[in-house]
């Protein structure tokens, strides 16, 4: 192997310009691979993090996935039961006996839950009206499942306990109505209940729509306003391990009957888009390396063509076809390895530059830096792609070199 390595090195060093061109192709390929994949992966992880942080890991809602079983069917499970004209019982919407469900969820290790009653209300202030979503919650429980407390730019969630008519609104709404802390607004429900409430907190999430259309009050106050005493329509569940959400949701649903949807299930379409995006991204960056590998193919092919006489003489000396192949494959490996190492350096510079770019996404109120992810697996993948394409590109001319029949060349040269 040392002999083949020294021959390979000699070949490459005597064709510095061609070797440099091949090397540049791989360096740029690896660097772009790293730059693009770090950005794609970074934005993906950032997106998932936002998804996991800003939405409940599991939402138990007051719905059933399928129609409830009729008592007659339950009584005669093996009988041929047919019911006509079934009219569902009219009842107050919401999760019945939510305290029991809450207690069950909280009894599971690593789970935190908060009951929420959500409904539509109209906020009026100084003759202006604005329809918003009102969520009634228990501050001490809400704190364990939501980042709302962190997003408050004025006031606290505990202020809702101190002032039963307290309301927390978003910054967008505050700006729109020129509201500030301590101001009173009228809240009108669909049933016509009206309450005057005092602003005890203002939050900013960065999502303009959310900041304008969401308000929070105490659960009891919401139940009165929406005329749904002792009911909630959602249980928000947060897990220590967000990626276990799917299994835990299934368990909760099987136990309490109501629909429990994990963030993974709720965002399935978005997550599948991410997968498609990854496939596209890796295809494109791999294509860059494949194109770069043509440079290697070109260089090694030229060397093989120029070195036919050397190959013939080495074979006449006693070199095997595999020795000859090895020489040229090693040349590809050398270009691939050095190209990868230099590409890592350039890729890191590229990642650093991308990380400095600041953008303001539409719908957001804050400027953010491009999310760049520097993961070991990207470097491994980039090097693997670079090496595979280099060796692949070298293999074809190497095989040709190995097949050279010395007599054909010697006869031609004589």
């Amino acid at each position: 192997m040392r002999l083949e390595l020294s021959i390979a090195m000699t070949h490459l060093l005597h064709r510095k310009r061609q070797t440099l061109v091949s090397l540049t192709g791989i360096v740029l390929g690896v660097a772009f691979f790293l730059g693009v994949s770090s950005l794609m992966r970074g934005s993906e992880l950032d997106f998932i993090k936002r998804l996991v942080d800003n939405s409940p890991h599991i939402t138990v809602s007051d719905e059933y996935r399928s129609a409830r079983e009729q008592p007659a069917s339950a009584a005669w499970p093996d009988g041929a039961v047919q019911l006509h004209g079934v009219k569902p019982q009219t009842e107050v919407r919401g999760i019945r006996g939510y305290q029991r469900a809450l207690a069950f969820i909280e009894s599971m290790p690593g789970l935190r839950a908060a009951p929420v009653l959500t409904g539509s209300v109209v906020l009026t202030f100084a003759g202006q009206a604005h329809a918003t979503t009102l969520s009634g919650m228990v501050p001490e429980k809400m704190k364990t499942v939501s980042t709302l407390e962190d997003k408050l730019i004025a006031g606290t969630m505990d202020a809702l306990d101190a002032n039963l008519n307290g309301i927390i609104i978003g910054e967008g709404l505050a700006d729109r109505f020129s509201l500030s802390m301590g101001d009173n607004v009228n809240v009108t429900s669909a049933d016509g209940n009206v309450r005057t409430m005092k602003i005890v907190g203002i939050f900013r999430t960065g999502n303009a729509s959310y900041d304008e259309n969401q308000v929070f009050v105490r659960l009891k106050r919401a139940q009165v306003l929406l005329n749904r005493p002792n009911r909630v329509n959602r249980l928000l569940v947060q897990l220590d391990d967000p990626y276990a959400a799917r299994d835990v949701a299934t368990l909760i649903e099987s136990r309490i009957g109501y629909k429990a949807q994990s963030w993974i299930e709720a965002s399935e379409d978005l997550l599948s888009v991410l997968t498609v995006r990854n496939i596209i991204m890796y295809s494109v960056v791999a294509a860059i390396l494949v194109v770069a590998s043509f440079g290697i193919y070109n260089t090694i092919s030229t060397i093989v063509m120029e070195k036919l006489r050397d190959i013939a003489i080495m074979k006449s000396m006693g070199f095997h076809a595999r020795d000859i192949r090895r020489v040229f494959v090693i040349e590809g490996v050398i270009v691939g390895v050095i190209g990868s190492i230099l590409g890592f350096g350039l890729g890191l510079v590229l990642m650093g530059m991308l990380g400095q770019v600041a953008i303001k996404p539409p719908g957001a109120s804050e400027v953010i830096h491009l999310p760049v992810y520097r993961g070991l697996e990207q470097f491994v993948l980039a090097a693997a792609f670079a090496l595979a394409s280099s060796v692949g590109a070298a293999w074809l001319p190497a095989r040709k070199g190995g097949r050279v029949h010395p007599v054909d060349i010697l006869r031609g040269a004589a």
Partner: protein
Amino acid sequence: MSACVRAENLTRRLAGEVPVTLVEDVSLEVARGEFVAVMGPSGCGKSSLLYLLGLLDVPTSGRVLMDGEDTTGFDENRLADLRLRRLGFVFQFHFLLAEFTALHNVMLPMRKLGELGEARAQARALDLLAELGVAEHAHKRPEQMSGGQRQRVAIARALANDPMVILADEPTGNLDSVSSATVRDILGTLAREHGKTVIVVTHDSAFASAAGRRIMLVDGHLDQSAHAPG
């Protein structure tokens, strides 16, 4: 003396629309330490016969025995191993590897064989270059040497693994008369004093007197009438 190289009814044909016969029904024996010149007009099949005897080519029919060992049916790798250990080639064009120095060219077969370490291989290569009078050019690349010097380096390379047989194809075809005489003398000495079997394909009539035996080839056949010691 026992036959070092023995050819039995060697025939080599190139297939094609019009098949070409390069060598036909050639049988010969070359003893250890013998210096044989294969002569004949251009295109008579001298080089083809040398390639067959040197196990670079495989006969269409007939067989080659190397030191009594029948090489018929040997695969490419086995033939390559035999060439590496027992045969040394010298060609009309020196065929030295252009990027390597004379020293590294001579070391190449030894490094391939891998029996000597790097240091011993280098020492042996320097000895060989010294024996052939080109030691001072050891660190030069082929382009920095004259034709005669390159050919002597090529002979040193052929001797690297101490082969049994030296096969030379027009070794003086590209040299001036002084260098030709030197190469002839070297090959003669190798046969006489070192017991190497030397088979030289040549047009050079001076080889006729230097060689122990001349073999004439005409149209791929041995010309028995010219089979005479020189």
